[in-house]
């Protein structure tokens, strides 16, 4: 045994290499409490326990564990506070850091030899904890809903799984092979529970079944070869044979949670996703076929046994190894369980949907960089890392560290050395194949396992278990600690998703974009942009192709986190021949993030029309615009505020004088409503009398709303505070009188009621949106934030914004990710505050999408995928009218797919995962029946069937 020269790095070495000091907080706490020796002892013991397993030198590790056991053994019975703290820490580690379970069991085995009472306490404590969890089910079914929806809770059965794993490692000190009975008890429960509903999938039954099977190998992990035989026989007959009788019942389809979508079979998927439940038994049978010879866990026995023997011989009470009782659990009856609705996040995942496996690696390499999902190891690491990520969310740095050193807790040869490059692994693989390596060496990469597990959580459907930003920042920590090892791993993941953007689920595309932006914003926005130049060029003539759309919106999102200059500077590449850094011009075009194309023309047309379309006004406006552009050209950095084109008070323009009055009015402090009303009348009368060509009401709305936006343009919250000040005035303008709430205690003067026809109301609402679009055309994000506040303040009604964003002329919701994010925020917030309005909006949203699908399908024959490919290849030089027709068609086809993807996203988000909307399911189904394109309709109706 070569224990002396560890290849792996211990946690301390890992942190030393990577300048991180997460222990700092602990140290300072320690100092504060140093006055009390008992507290100090407890702190030291618990801190040491937390680190068990993090030492790569197995000999030292076992020595350390034996050393740590001494104060525990000595004081455990005497100091209650120490006992409670140690037990509490043990439980926390088992649940939050299950990768340490094996290393951790050594402590209990050693304690047991020195003072069996400690082990007895631990086993009884964990047994009680598990029983407590089980009892909570009975209680939950009695109480009403919403008992414990804390997102840090992974769920009763997921926690019990980790307890079972740990108890299984203690099998040598448990009487009568009771551990087998406990496993069998749960296994039988899962079978009975599923049999109760032979036609319907029981998610809880599947979870229990999976959890028991994935934990079986732990039973043998601390057993010597002699004692293994009997246990193996029991496992074979009592567990594995029984497991074969579990019936896997599944829904007919589960397209709502599929990460990829073949776009009505027009595209090939990167892989066919498999389900956890279908893989676990075959994986266990495979282990059984190898007589459970397990290369997974570190074999501590050789080092552990001498210590245990020595401790026993020094033990004054008993020289015999004491074994403890492990009684069976009081398990809730299947009939109660079948009604149980779990609250914990992982339990809920099982309960709601089949668990589909998300894959990132092993898809493009000739060899495995992560264990195959069809092997036990593959499932095992997915399980462990998902538990770590779910339960350690209160400390992203710890989660990242533990995932980065995951290999440390398992057999030395299981993974290739940390940080091995793909080139190195390719060499290893070559030597494995050629027989150069006598025993094949592992090509598994711990970084790939870590990153794949985090990406799995980000791309979890229907919803991630934690806020996505948590997972992003875990990845960022991984990368910061160890950029050389992690950056290429990200690179491969980004490439995989980018290359499959055509089939990636719509919502996942948005998450991918969000992740990538956050990721690279933490690393100077570095990306190998040169890889995407060709795509950008060949897609120059289409707008809605997913790759083109992705590049455009990714860059827009980057700009939102930074600024155009900085992002522009990141478009560089290294010339491989000269090693010089070169700029990539191709992406400069995307720095223009304006809401509409040709924004200057848009502004000019819009303003000219607003002023009644007269040529002399157009000339004035044109001059002003040219002047503005000249002015901006002279600056090297142009702020968002400076880009605004606002001229109402210009004396050469119609109504300049009254516009100046409006400007001054809003600019000043709060003024009473009657003064506002007078001004309002004055604008209308002046416009009507002096400029009959101008639509006075439209002008009025634009004048006021653009002026508010302009005066508040310093920042979002300046505009918000000024809008907030004048909410009632704005409601008066927007026609939403009913919502005006006068401050009675301040004797606020009431507005005269102006009767608006519904047409007038529609116009005013639409003009408000248009005016914000116009004034902030260069900053779409600001546009939508302002509109959101107008909705929150009940000045603007959300249905008008929906109409605008889903307009088939502009398709803003697809074209601009700011728009979709904004709509999502509006819907989510209404979902909480105003359920009825929310349902109306959802139905409206679905109607609009269905309508767009029908309009688009009129323009395409979906079959001609080949023509579409041709079109994508065309370069601009050879564009003829016929080509243009083709491009439009390609764009329409992608729009069709994207609207369908959007429909799925919203159906999943607001209908499938929400009970509150079940009453509108029928209405929505009827709506889906009106989809004219038959293949699309059939596909969409399967979603309804899945709910």
């Amino acid at each position, binding site marked *: 045994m070569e224990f002396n020269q560890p290849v792996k790095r211990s946690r301390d070495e890992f942190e030393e290499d990577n300048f991180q000091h*997460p222990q700092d*907080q*602990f140290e300072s706490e320690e100092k*504060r409490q140093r006055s009390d020796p008992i507290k100090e002892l407890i*702190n030291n013991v*618990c801190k040491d326990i*937390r680190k068990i397993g993090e030492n790569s030198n197995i000999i030292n590790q076992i020595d350390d564990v034996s050393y740590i056991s001494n104060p525990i053994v000595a004081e455990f019975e005497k100091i209650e506070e120490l006992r409670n*703290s*140690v037990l*509490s*820490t043990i439980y*926390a*580690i088992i*649940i*939050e*850091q299950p990768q340490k379970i094996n290393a951790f069991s050594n402590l209990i085995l050693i304690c047991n030899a020195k003072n069996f009472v400690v082990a007895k306490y631990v086993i009884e404590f964990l047994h009680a904890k598990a029983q407590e969890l089980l009892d909570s089910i009975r209680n939950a079914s009695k109480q009403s809903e919403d008992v414990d929806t804390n997102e840090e809770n992974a769920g009763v059965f997921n926690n019990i799984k980790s307890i079972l794993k740990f108890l299984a490692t203690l099998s040598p000190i448990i009487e009568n092979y009771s551990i087998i009975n406990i496993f069998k008890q749960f296994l039988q429960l899962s079978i009975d529970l599923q049999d109760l509903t032979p036609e319907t999938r029981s998610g809880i039954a599947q979870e229990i079944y999976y959890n028991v099977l994935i934990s079986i190998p732990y039973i043998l992990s601390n057993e010597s070869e002699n004692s293994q035989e009997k246990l193996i026989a029991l496992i074979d007959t009592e567990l594995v044979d029984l497991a074969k009788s579990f019936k896997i019942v599944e829904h007919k389809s589960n397209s709502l949670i599929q990460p990829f979508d073949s776009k009505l079979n027009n595209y090939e998927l990167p892989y066919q996703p498999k389900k956890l439940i279908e893989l676990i038994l075959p994986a266990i049978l495979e282990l059984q076929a190898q007589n459970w010879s397990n290369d997974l866990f570190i074999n501590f026995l050789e080092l552990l046994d001498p210590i245990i023997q020595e401790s026993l011989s020094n033990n004054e009470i008993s020289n015999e190894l004491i074994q403890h009782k492990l009684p069976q659990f009081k398990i809730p009856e299947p009939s109660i369980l079948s009604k149980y609705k779990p609250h914990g996040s992982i339990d809920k995942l099982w309960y709601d949907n089949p668990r589909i496996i998300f894959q990132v690696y092993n898809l493009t390499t000739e060899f495995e960089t992560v264990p195959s999902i069809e092997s036990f190891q593959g499932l095992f690491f997915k399980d462990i890392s998902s538990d770590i990520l779910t339960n350690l*969310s*209160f*400390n*992203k740095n*710890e989660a990242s560290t533990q995932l980065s050193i995951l290999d440390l807790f398992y057999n030395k040869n299981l993974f290739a050395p940390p940080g091995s490059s793909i080139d190195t692994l390719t060499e290893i693989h070559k030597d494995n194949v050629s027989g150069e390596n006598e025993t094949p060496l592992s090509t598994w990469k711990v970084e790939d396992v870590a990153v794949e597990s985090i990406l799995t959580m980000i791309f979890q459907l229907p919803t991630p278990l934690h*806020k*996505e*930003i*948590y997972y992003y920042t875990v990845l*960022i920590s991984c990368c910061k600690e160890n950029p050389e090892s992690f*950056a290429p791993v*990200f*690179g491969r993941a*980004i490439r995989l998703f980018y290359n499959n953007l055509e089939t990636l689920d719509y919502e996942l595309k948005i998450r991918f974009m969000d992740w990538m932006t*956050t990721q690279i914003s*933490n*690393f*100077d926005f*570095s990306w190998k942009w040169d890889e995407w130049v060709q795509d950008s060029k060949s897609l120059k003539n289409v707008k809605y192709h997913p790759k083109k759309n992705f590049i455009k919106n990714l860059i827009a*999102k980057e700009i*939102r*986190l930074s600024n155009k200059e*900085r992002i522009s500077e990141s478009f*560089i590449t290294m010339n491989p021949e000269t090693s010089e*850094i070169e700029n990539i011009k191709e992406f400069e075009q995307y720095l223009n993030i304006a809401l509409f194309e040709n924004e200057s023309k848009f502004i000019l047309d819009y303003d000219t029309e607003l002023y009644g379309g007269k040529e002399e006004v157009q000339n004035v406006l044109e001059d002003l615009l040219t002047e503005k552009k000249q002015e901006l050209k002279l600056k090297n950095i142009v702020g968002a505020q400076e880009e605004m084109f606002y001229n109402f008070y210009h004396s050469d323009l119609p109504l300049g004088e009254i516009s100046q009055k409006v400007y001054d009015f809003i*600019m000043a*402090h*709060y003024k009473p409503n009657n003064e506002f009303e007078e001004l309002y009348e004055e604008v209308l009368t002046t416009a009507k009398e002096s400029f009959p060509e101008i639509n006075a009401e439209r002008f009025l709305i634009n004048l006021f709303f653009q002026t508010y936006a302009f*005066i*508040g343009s*310093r*920042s*979002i*919250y*300046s505009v*918000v*505070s000024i809008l*907030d*000040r004048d909410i009632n005035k704005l409601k008066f303008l927007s026609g939403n009188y009913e919502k005006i*709430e006068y401050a009675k205690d301040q004797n606020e003067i009431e507005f005269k009621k102006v009767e608006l026809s519904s047409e007038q109301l529609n116009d005013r609402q639409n003009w408000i949106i248009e005016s914000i679009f116009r004034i902030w055309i260069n*900053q779409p*994000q*600001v546009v939508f*934030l302002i509109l959101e506040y107008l909705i929150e303040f009940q000045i603007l009604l959300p249905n008008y914004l929906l109409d605008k964003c889903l307009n088939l002329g502009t398709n803003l919701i697809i074209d601009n990710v700011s728009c979709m994010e904004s709509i999502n925020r509006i819907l989510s917030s209404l979902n909480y505050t105003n359920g009825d309005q929310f349902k109306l909006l959802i139905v409206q949203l679905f109607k609009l999408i269905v309508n767009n699908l029908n309009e688009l399908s009129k323009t395409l024959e979906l079959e001609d995928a080949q023509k579409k490919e041709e079109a994508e290849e065309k370069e601009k030089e050879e564009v003829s009218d016929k080509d243009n027709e083709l491009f439009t068609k390609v764009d329409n086809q992608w729009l069709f797919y994207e609207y369908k993807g959007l429909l799925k996203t919203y159906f999943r988000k607001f209908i499938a995962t929400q009970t509150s909307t079940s009453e509108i399911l029928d209405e929505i189904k009827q709506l889906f029946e009106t989809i004219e394109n038959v293949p699309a309709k059939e596909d969409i109706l399967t979603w309804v069937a899945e709910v």
Partner: protein
Amino acid sequence: MELLKENFKNSADRLDKPSDYLIKKAVRKQNFTDLEKSLRSRTIYVGNLSHFTTEEQIHELFSKCGSIDRIIMGLDRNKLTPCGFCFVIYKTEDGSLNAMKFLSKTVLDGQSLAIDLDPGFIDGRQFGRGMFGGQAGQEAAAAAENGGGRGGFRGRGGFRGGFRSRGGNFRGGRGFRGGFRGNRGGFRGGRDRGETSVYIPSADPTFNNQNPPPFDPMGGFNQQF
């Protein structure tokens, strides 16, 4: 103090607790009200911002942790320009705890962010408390870098109080957005957003012309993908 006691309920430190700075301050003053408040607060303090970082950028990043009610930029007391810190007020306390857990040390505009729970924003706190109007900590760090002693930066209080009248000087002219003093706070369910000017523009004409800090986008990093 119950809330400072380690309860060993977790296997590692929680990141959503007040920083050592807040704890030390509470222990020194033997006053734990602020500390308790900060644990239930919707407000976080964000430090180590670049002076060029805008509210919109902050919104973009911090809205990933929850819906934001408003952002209050920290301003140099004298120049009234952003001076490297801000307060983010979320609509719910989850937002601030999430930000505390997830966004500490995240990079925004090339700066690694420092985040702390905050007992709640009080008008006036948006101004830097350093001797020269900026953030005390940053001024001290800058001085230390220039070989200056730290002693001189202790005289806080003396400069406070003056900013209110000074703020008034910047009102009125076109382009300045001083004091939208909406006294309408009460009627919107107690969310008195409009009680103070949320953002006072730069009175320093050179502010917009300064170039952002130097930037080395390659840094050798992207060759590694």
